């Protein structure tokens, strides 16, 4: 029963999270490839249709890559405590998410860890 319950919960979460990005197609992202990047924020776009974060991160050779990372819209993020001040230029954070299948430096946000260790997980509430 517990297993069935967990399977149901995980399946529902995946389906609904897909719908959360359905305005623009979350299928562009590789959901089987979770990446973690140490980011330095360059810009925080608190805007519709989707909030996105521009940041720099070092690749394995020590070169700087310029990334963009999208989340859900400001209306739904603000209901979870996010504000337009949540991220600022120069903030050092950890960004966890799923990269674009295209290979572009674009990703879908799963979890953000602020410098003080606070974790922000964008999700629609139930």
């Amino acid at each position: 029963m517990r297993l069935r319950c967990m399977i149901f919960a995980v399946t529902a979460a995946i389906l609904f999270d897909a719908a959360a990005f359905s305005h623009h197609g979350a299928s562009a992202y590789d959901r089987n490839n979770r990446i973690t990047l140490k980011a330095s924020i360059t810009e925080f776009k608190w805007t519709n249709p989707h909030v996105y974060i521009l940041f720099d991160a070092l690749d394995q050779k020590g070169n700087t890559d310029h990334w963009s990372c999208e989340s859900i819209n400001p209306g739904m993020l603000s209901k979870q405590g996010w504000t337009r001040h949540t991220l600022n230029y120069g903030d050092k954070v950890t960004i966890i998410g799923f990269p674009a299948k295209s290979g572009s430096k674009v990703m879908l946000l799963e979890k953000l860890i602020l410098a003080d260790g606070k974790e922000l997980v964008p999700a629609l509430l139930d």
Partner: protein
Amino acid sequence: MRNVRLWLILGLAGVCGFTSTVPAQSVSPRNLSGVWIGKRDGKQVVDEKFRPAMTPWSQAKFDAAVPTLGPRVIAGKENDPILRCNPDGIPKLLGVPQPFEIIQIPDRIIMFFEHNRHWRTIWTDGRKLPDDPDPSWMGYSIGRWEGNTLVVDSIGFNDIPWLNFYGDPHSDAMHLTERYRRVDAKTLEIAVTINDPKAYTKPWVNEPKQYNLEPKWEIGEHYCVIDEENAYADAVRLPAGQTQQK
């Protein structure tokens, strides 16, 4: 120990999304007012699982649609009319992952959707549907109570918005029926039936979709602004799908 077990069972039931049939507090089942958002259960308002056979007219429109969800996605080539800031109509608005607010006044019910700040009127003053309404994005809607279920009939739609995120079309001949039922104090249920002989060979009857009440939420500002859409497309949507665009 017995209490611990009881709380464990109640907690698991909550996690699994079981709903009680006993209202949490006294509320009129004919009062639908409040801010509602669709449950995270993966259930669709207009579900392709129940889609009847298409007519040649709708099959051609369906084949030309590149949706943002499902197996027919081509990332970077999506052509949902919403991407050009066309309004989403009814019933697609009932399936977006954003809340809507229902306000009831004596002769009408008004629905405010956070998504792109759309709104619609459902007339409950006993009037009939107009004979030949101009095609519109939201259609023309009248509602009546059958017991504790609000039955909403709508006609007068244009044929531009899709029915859902999967590219299923409808025509300007669509007659939409929505059935609203307050299951308990915190839960609303909406069941949608599409009768569109120009597009489908039989009525498209869907199972009810449930919505949670969010008493502390305010409907936020969300407009579709073409400059913002384009900036987002340049920074995120198109690069994310660029290999498929070649």
